[in-house]
């Protein structure tokens, strides 16, 4: 981890750059040198030709002294190192360096080798073959060029008769020039190019280092730090998606993952809480039932005595009654802890209702409750667990009796077959954003169902918002107070992808709409304007009304306040103070939910409440066919 990815990239790319520039520099220098030497060779050849032509007359006239002086004069030029003329035998006949006149050269010597490499010497090889580069003992580099002096008719006819007509070659003019200038220029070029190469590599390295720091190291460091924070348990971590491109995408994906982890953890915590409640309830029930057995047995035993002070009797009766209430509370806890999957069978809900009524009839009469039954005659059977449904009806009847209070009142218990339009009734049991994040929030319930959590944004602030999970109902819960009638765009709270649909308009107010992916990925849309009651679930509306069997329990008691309505199906929510545990409706809701049904409550404070249980009939009709 200590060798930084940025440093590695800089080193790797720096090395490649240095190699490429080095190669380029070498090739350039070599070409440059070759060009300069070629140029110099041509110049030397021209010079050699000029010397040959200018001395031609002296040769023809055989004026050796003039020729020698001429060559000496030419040789004095600083750029010319040496000019000499060899005869055919290889002896130096004239030279700008008088000391070597008369010396003979072997045909294998470097100046002769070009033409004499083969048995029969070449008469006039091309210029680059006649040139040679060699170094003096002091290390200076020289370029020599030989120019053969061929026999001409004028030579054989000249007065000196020095050459016969059958000779083709008479000798060689050898001109040597210094390469000092060329070498100096090449050295200067090399210095310039190497300097430039080092400079470019340094600049490229710095640029790369800066880029990698900005584009790689920092985002990677942010990711690393984020991962560490998550490892340390901080799931609120988000990483700024500054890297752009893949790293930006990675940061986005990382943030989405964190959000989902956090959500999953929240759900687990919630599930764990409920499971713990179950275990706790079972444990507590066992422990509490033992002391309660002592209290109840002794108190009731005392009550059996015939001669007992009436005042004492009244006190004992309170003990027995309250102990029995404890017993009911503990049983409620156990019921909640032991919710089991329904054992479904074709069930006539009218039978269930009648059995439930016989169970609670005594209690209702004691509480001065008048019960009105309105059961439909031709109720089709539904697929249900009869004993669980009985528990539901008993719970609802006892709740209604509690709502009526001590003065009593009327409960109407009705059953019927109905067709229910989806709007206002159909629960949305699956909700996701276009990227697949689960939007259901088990931590926030509306009417017992997990709400759909979204993120709203308006006027530069963002806040969490829970949509009512029943289609067409608008008991939304906002995390913060929000103004009505403003267009507040909506995003996924986890991956922050916008849910607003660009091409869709609200049919009521014309504002843009937003949509979530409901069950089977069917889009369900709402208006982005707060307080606008527009919603549309195309696929569900298309399927139309669904046949159900309804059982409703209606009382004319005190009713439920609107803030309580959203919570009444939550476990441990109770308005009965010390007289309840808050599990009856939670158990009821759990049973209905596991039957794939719905339970709805309408209430008006001071006028009463109506609970309506609906079980889908599609399963029931299949059951009737099967029966």
């Amino acid at each position, binding site marked *: 981890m200590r060798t930084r990815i940025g440093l590695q990239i800089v080193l790797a790319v720096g090395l490649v750059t240095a190699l490429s520039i080095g190669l380029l520099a070498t090739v350039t220098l070599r070409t440059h040198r070759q060009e300069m030497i070629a140029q110099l060779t041509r110049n030397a050849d021209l010079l050699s030709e000029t010397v040959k032509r200018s001395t031609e007359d002296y040769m023809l006239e055989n004026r050796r002294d003039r020729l020698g002086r001429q060559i000496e004069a030419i040789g004095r030029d600083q750029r010319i190192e040496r000019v000499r003329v060899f005869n055919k035998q290889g002896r130096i006949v004239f030279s700008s360096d008088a000391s070597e006149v008369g010396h003979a050269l072997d045909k294998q010597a470097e100046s002769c080798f070009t033409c004499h490499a083969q048995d029969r010497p070449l008469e006039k090889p091309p210029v680059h073959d006649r040139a040679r580069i060699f170094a003096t003992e002091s290390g200076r580099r020289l370029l020599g060029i030989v120019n053969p002096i061929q026999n001409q008719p004028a030579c054989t006819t000249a007065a000196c008769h020095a050459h016969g007509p059958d000779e083709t070659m008479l000798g060689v003019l050898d001109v040597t020039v210094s390469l000092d200038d060329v070498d100096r220029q090449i050295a200067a070029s090399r210095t310039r190019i190497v300097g430039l190469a080092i400079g470019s590599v340094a600049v490229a390295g710095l640029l790369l280092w800066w880029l990698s720091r900005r584009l790689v190291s920092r985002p990677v460091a942010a990711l690393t730090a984020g991962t560490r924070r998550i490892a340390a348990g901080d799931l609120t971590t988000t990483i700024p998606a500054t890297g752009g491109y893949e790293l930006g995408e990675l940061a986005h994906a990382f943030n989405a993952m964190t959000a989902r982890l956090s959500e999953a953890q929240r759900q687990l915590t919630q599930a764990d809480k409920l499971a713990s409640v179950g275990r706790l309830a079972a444990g507590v029930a066992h422990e509490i*039932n033992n002391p309660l*057995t*002592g209290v109840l*047995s002794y108190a*009731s*035993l005392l009550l059996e005595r015939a001669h007992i002070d009436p005042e004492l009797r009244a006190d004992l009766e309170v003990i027995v009654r309250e102990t029995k209430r404890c017993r009911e509370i503990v049983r409620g806890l156990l019921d909640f802890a*032991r919710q089991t999957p329904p054992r479904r069978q074709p069930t006539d809900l009218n039978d269930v209702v009648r059995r439930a009524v016989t169970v609670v009839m005594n209690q209702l009469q004691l509480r001065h409750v008048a019960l009105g039954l309105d059961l439909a005659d031709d109720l089709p059977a539904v697929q249900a667990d009869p004993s669980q449904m009985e528990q539901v009806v008993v719970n609802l009847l006892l709740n209604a009796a509690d709502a009526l209070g001590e003065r009593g009142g009327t409960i109407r218990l009705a059953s019927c077959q109905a067709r229910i339009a989806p709007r206002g009734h159909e629960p949305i049991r699956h909700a996701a954003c276009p990227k697949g994040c689960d939007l259901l929030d088990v931590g926030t319930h509306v009417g017992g169902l997990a709400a759909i959590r979204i993120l709203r944004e308006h006027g530069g602030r963002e806040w969490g918002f829970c949509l009512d999970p029943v289609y067409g109902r608008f008991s939304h819960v906002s995390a913060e107070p929000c103004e009505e009638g403003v267009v507040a765009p909506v995003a996924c709270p986890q991956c922050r992808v916008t849910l607003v649909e660009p091409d869709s308009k609200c049919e009521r107010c014309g504002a843009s709409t937003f949509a979530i992916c409901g069950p089977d990925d069917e889009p369900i849309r709402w208006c982005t304007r707060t307080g606008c009651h527009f919603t549309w679930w195309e696929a569900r509306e298309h399927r139309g009304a669904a046949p159900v069997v309804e059982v409703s329990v209606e009382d004319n008691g005190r009713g439920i306040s609107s803030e309580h309505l959203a919570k009444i199906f939550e476990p441990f929510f109770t308005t009965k103070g010390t007289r309840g545990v808050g599990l009856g409706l939670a158990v009821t809701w759990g049973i209905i939910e596991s039957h794939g049904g719905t339970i709805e409550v309408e209430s008006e404070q001071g006028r009463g409440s109506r609970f309506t249980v609906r079980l889908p009939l599609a399963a029931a009709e299949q059951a009737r066919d099967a029966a």
Partner: protein
Amino acid sequence: MNECDVLVIDDEPVVRDAVRRVLQAHGLRVATAEDATSGLSHPALAGCRLVLCDLMLPDRSGTEVLQEILRRYPSLPVVLITGYATRDEARLALEAGAVDFLAKPFEAKELMESVQRALAGRPATQEEEA
């Protein structure tokens, strides 16, 4: 000395004492044991007319005690007592051969009704299953 009518097996002292008080108040002779081992080896077991046994004992379950008693004394009625009151447990207890099932906490009257029924040899099956 060992003559008794009912043997009560329960690990909870308050339950043992309360049950003994109620039964003695109704003229029954009671012996008690605090776990399955001492209950099954209790000298009163052979001569008693009824056993009341808790479903959850520290060493063995009440159902095992019930089966052991029925193996040794097939005609001895056993009533199971439990702190977990569910229909399923009641059904399982009765299927295992108990004559009745009593959910804690109970009133003296409820206890005596169950005991009288068991001593009279009338099983409570139909009523519990209703």
